[in-house]
């Protein structure tokens, strides 16, 4: 699964630690998500969508 996490985070000038704190996960988890090698659970995907103020399908794609 592909995602736009890194782009969205960079647009907001947030660090991985900032995003990790907002999502309630570790910075290593944010890094794993951004590399696309770890797919989040549905609850975490909803939290990500909420933090960025965008629908899930605008962030994640096949």
């Amino acid at each position: 699964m592909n995602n736009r996490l890194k782009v969205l985070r960079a647009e907001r000038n947030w660090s991985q630690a900032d995003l990790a704190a907002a999502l309630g996960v570790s910075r290593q988890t944010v890094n794993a998500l951004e590399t696309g090698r770890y797919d989040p659970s549905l609850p975490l995907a909803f939290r990500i969508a909420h933090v960025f103020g965008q629908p899930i399908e605008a962030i994640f794609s096949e």
Partner: protein
Amino acid sequence: MTDRPPVPKRKKPLGYASVLGLCVIFGLLVGGASGFINDMGGAIADPLRAILLTITVVFVLAISLIWWRGADEAVREAHKWAWYWGGSVGIAAGMVVFALLSWDSRLIALPPLEPADAVMIGMTLILGLQVVGYTVAWAIWWLRRR
């Protein structure tokens, strides 16, 4: 835009350092109590050892549960993957040792052992192999996601 994202109020999870610190303190206490019981000896020593062991197991389970609840999903996934693959490979490696010992005692020669010692060595060997497999699998999970 440079504002940081809003951080919801959450209970701060117990980190690795806190878990290690608590375990070290508890280990020192149990070690001290164990030494005290050994010095004391007598008929009361065995029941006291059983009580101490029970308290230790309950503590380990409690601290593990508290830490697990604070861990995020990727951290949990890494441990579940390591538990399954690392632990299974560790058991499989133990089976190889078992087969070598069973098929031909010339391949691995053990000195004569008391049954209790043989059981202890076998359990320690399997546990050790599982811990090694677990650690390697856990590291692989994270290295593949860097």
